[in-house]
């Protein structure tokens, strides 16, 4: 009886909640397939004729948006941030985990404090500094220099994450390595880093996701010709050709780009679901 009751309360509840959470995805697709005037006025719930060619136009022509150029720019930033932050955070976290020297705890508490610092507080002063140094008006490959600079010191949350990870490994590891004449950095690189595989994967996934979806940093740091997909989609999407004279924003096209933009992250999630869940659980809990 109890099981029966549970079946009849929990499952419908779960299904309704799931539908609520999945509804925006459905609506995204629905809008993307509408004609512009359908998307701008109350006409009907569903597109009268699904406009599948929107996807074709976005992907294979440059009439709507320079899709692949923008995607390339996004990916450049993602690669820079992911690799640099991952490596330097691991190195710094390793330092904090494996060297018991005076001043360590004090410095580590500063890192924890910066983790609590509102992002707005550091972001705007950094932006002012970069613009004063003239770093925001560089030409194509160099315009991504600010990301290199901000990535090199690692991110507090990942330093913390690696520190927890490296601190959990046995002490004998580096003693053995040092006795065998292995240098300090070599010990870190060829003994500890290979053991940190899962931590590295988790870090990389989150870094990639956050950088990929970032909107405000590229908006401030880049000029429109070097802009990332997230910003281009919002500011530079237009109707292909001059056939449309409607005074409405190109919402269906933006939505099409939005779907194509979201898709890689969802694919990534299905391949690396385990790392997402573990990473969230550990970074969240240990905080």
């Amino acid at each position, binding site marked *: 009886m109890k099981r029966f009751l*549970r079946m009849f309360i929990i*499952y419908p509840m*779960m299904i309704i*909640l*799931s539908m609520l959470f*999945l509804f*925006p995805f459905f*609506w995204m697709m629905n*809008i993307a397939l509408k004609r512009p005037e*359908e998307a701008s*006025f*109350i006409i009907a719930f569903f597109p009268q004729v699904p406009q599948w060619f929107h996807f074709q136009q976005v992907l294979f022509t440059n009439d709507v948006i320079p899709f692949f150029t923008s995607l390339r720019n996004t990916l450049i930033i993602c690669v820079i941030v992911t690799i640099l932050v991952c490596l*330097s955070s691991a*190195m*710094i976290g390793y*330092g*904090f985990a494996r*060297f018991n*020297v005076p001043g*360590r705890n004090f410095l580590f508490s500063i890192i924890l404090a*910066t983790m*609590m610092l*509102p992002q*707005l*507080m*550091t972001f*705007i*002063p*950094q932006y*002012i*500094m970069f613009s004063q140094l003239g770093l925001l008006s560089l030409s194509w490959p160099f315009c991504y220099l600010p990301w290199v600079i901000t990535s*090199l*010191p*690692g991110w507090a949350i990942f330093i913390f994450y690696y520190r927890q990870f490296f*601190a959990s490994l046995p002490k004998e590891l580096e*003693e053995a390595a*040092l*006795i065998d004449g292995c240098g*300090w*950095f070599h010990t870190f690189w060829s003994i500890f880093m290979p053991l940190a595989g899962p931590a590295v994967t988790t870090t990389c996934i989150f870094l990639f*996701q956050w950088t990929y*979806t970032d909107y*405000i940093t590229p908006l401030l740091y880049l000029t429109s010709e070097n802009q990332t997909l*997230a910003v281009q989609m*919002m500011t530079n999407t237009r109707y292909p050709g001059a056939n449309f004279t409607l005074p409405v924003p190109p*919402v269906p096209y*933006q*939505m099409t780009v939005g*779907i194509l*933009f*979201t898709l890689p*992250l*969802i694919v990534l*999630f299905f391949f690396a679901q385990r790392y997402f*869940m573990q990473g*969230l*659980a550990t970074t*969240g*809990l240990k*905080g």
Partner: protein
Amino acid sequence: MDISLYLKLKKSKRSSFSLGKQKMFVFYGFISPWIVGFIGLLVIPMVFAIYISFTNFNGFDLAGTSVIGISNYVEAFRNPDAWRTMGLTIKYSVMAIPLGLITALGLSLLLNQKIKGRGLFRTFFYIPTLVPGIASALVFGCIFNVNSGFLNLFLNLFKLPAIDWLNNYGVFCLAIMSIWGCGTMMVIFLAGLQEIPEELQEAAIIDGANKWQTFWNVTWPLLSPITYFQLIMGIIGALQMYVQASMLSQVAYGKFWEPLQSLFVYPSYALSQMMAYQRFGYGAALIWILFIIILLVTLIVQKTSKYWVYYAVDQEGGAKKE
């Protein structure tokens, strides 16, 4: 003493460096990128930001800037726009933080039941957090849109008049948008729930506690450190929330730096003063005021934590644990 450590000590005694000194050297070598970044990207820009908050800096002409004392701060307290936008930020926080926490906790409790298809449902609730903020602003813009939004299409079915959601209930729309992305919090709660030993709940049930009593006396106290962490993070996030508001405004009305009045939260006000009016000094002052407010609220919550957060281990001991 370990033989290897002894050997190492002996070896290093012979060299001019002692092991302790060498270790110190290597430690600072490892963390040097952070130290450089901390000074160059955090301390210096922040000191600079404090300085410009006392000047009339316009964003590019540093030479023509003059120090004007605390008048930026005085203006921040006198300007009705600052008060209005701060009111909106507080309204948003009061709405979004509890709603988000309750939704996330509720979902995680549901998912913690032993039911079939748990993983699938977890994925459904988590997937929205993967959607880039701008795409999610786009779709919620389309749901709340006055002319073509889903909600108004729905009202139209029953011949009800359309409602201008974004203009009248902007903060509410933002809160709904933030709840859609509560999957991260849910997963953290779920991990916490799964760490609670089942024996404790079973023991409570054997002692005659009902479901509600078990939750309130066993699950909730054991979960409270996680709730506390999420609450602090939620406060910090909600008080400085502006990107979503600006994006929603951009989607609906094409204005990013100066959002729609109903979406004009305090950080947006600070940013619009900088980006749209080149008043960097005033904007920086506004941001510093926000910083102090966030700090105060966090401290107050921290002070209350001893009344409702339950720690199984002693805090001092826990912090020192390697």
